[in-house]
């Protein structure tokens, strides 16, 4: 099963699935579920995500990694099948993360909005939050090469 077919097979508003197919996503303990509004990723809190121990704060890099994978998977699902021999993954060009609030010792959720997929570039915005979706802790914009 390819990544695309795995994502497509997720039932809308069904159970979440661990992203174990991607070793780095497994390292972050990412899970994905599909909603009517698109994919929602969850990074399960565990002590290895901490960047600054006193007081305990999530490492900003883990939020970057989460938002990058959230953006990438949204593009994988939105662009659909790729020609045989082409990479299953769009190529990351760049990503900028804004940090709005410190990440506490809780799970983090993330979702992405695709502004546009052109012939070459996908332009994506993504946000991450913890207990309250209206309190965004980190926001990203990412460009990916799709063709």
């Amino acid at each position, binding site marked *: 099963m390819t990544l695309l077919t795995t994502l497509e097979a997720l039932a809308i508003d069904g159970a979440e699935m661990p992203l174990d197919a991607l*070793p*780095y996503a*497994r390292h972050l303990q990412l899970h994905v579920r599909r909603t009517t509004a698109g994919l929602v990723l969850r990074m399960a809190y565990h002590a290895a*995500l901490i*960047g600054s121990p006193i007081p305990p704060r999530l*490492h*900003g890099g883990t939020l970057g990694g989460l938002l990058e994978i959230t953006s990438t998977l949204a593009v994988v699902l939105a662009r659909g099948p790729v020609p045989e021999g082409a990479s299953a993954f769009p190529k990351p060009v760049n990503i900028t*993360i804004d940090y709005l609030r*410190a990440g506490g010792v809780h799970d983090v959720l993330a979702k992405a909005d695709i502004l546009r997929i052109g012939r070459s570039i996908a332009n994506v915005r993504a946000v991450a939050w913890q207990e309250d979706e209206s309190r965004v802790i980190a926001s990203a914009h990412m460009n990916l090469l799709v063709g």
Partner: protein
Amino acid sequence: MTEITLQLAINHTPQLAALGGHYVNHGHFEDGRAWVELALPYGAHLIGYPDTGVIAGGAIYTVMDNACGMSVAISGAAAFEINGTIDLRIDYIKPATPHRTVMAYAECIKLTRRIGFVRGFAYHLPSDDGDGHAGRDHPIAVVNGTFMRQGPRP
């Protein structure tokens, strides 16, 4: 801050240690601005592209963020300042080569009263058998970021 103390502070960062990243070196320019270099050895848990074994951008991003923050932390008059990332941009110039260590170099380019401006890049060390596409002139990624100064460490 002594080399040993900075090394301990970096190497005891839980997420950096979990990735396998570690301190390599640091120094100061004549005007007090600092640079920091970390390393991220290759590991199977870092893979973001299972079809090629290339590591995830997020792993490089994390080590760069860490190096950038540390360069600001030791650029002020105090031995070590707390700071928080305001924003960080990374351009992925080329994929990291599987099985090779990623070096993460960052320097504070300007420290104002409140903000530290940083730039950095990730690269591979040239291998012993000669490698025309490694070294600092052939970055894997470049970053630019800003950090909020939050005072000396209590």
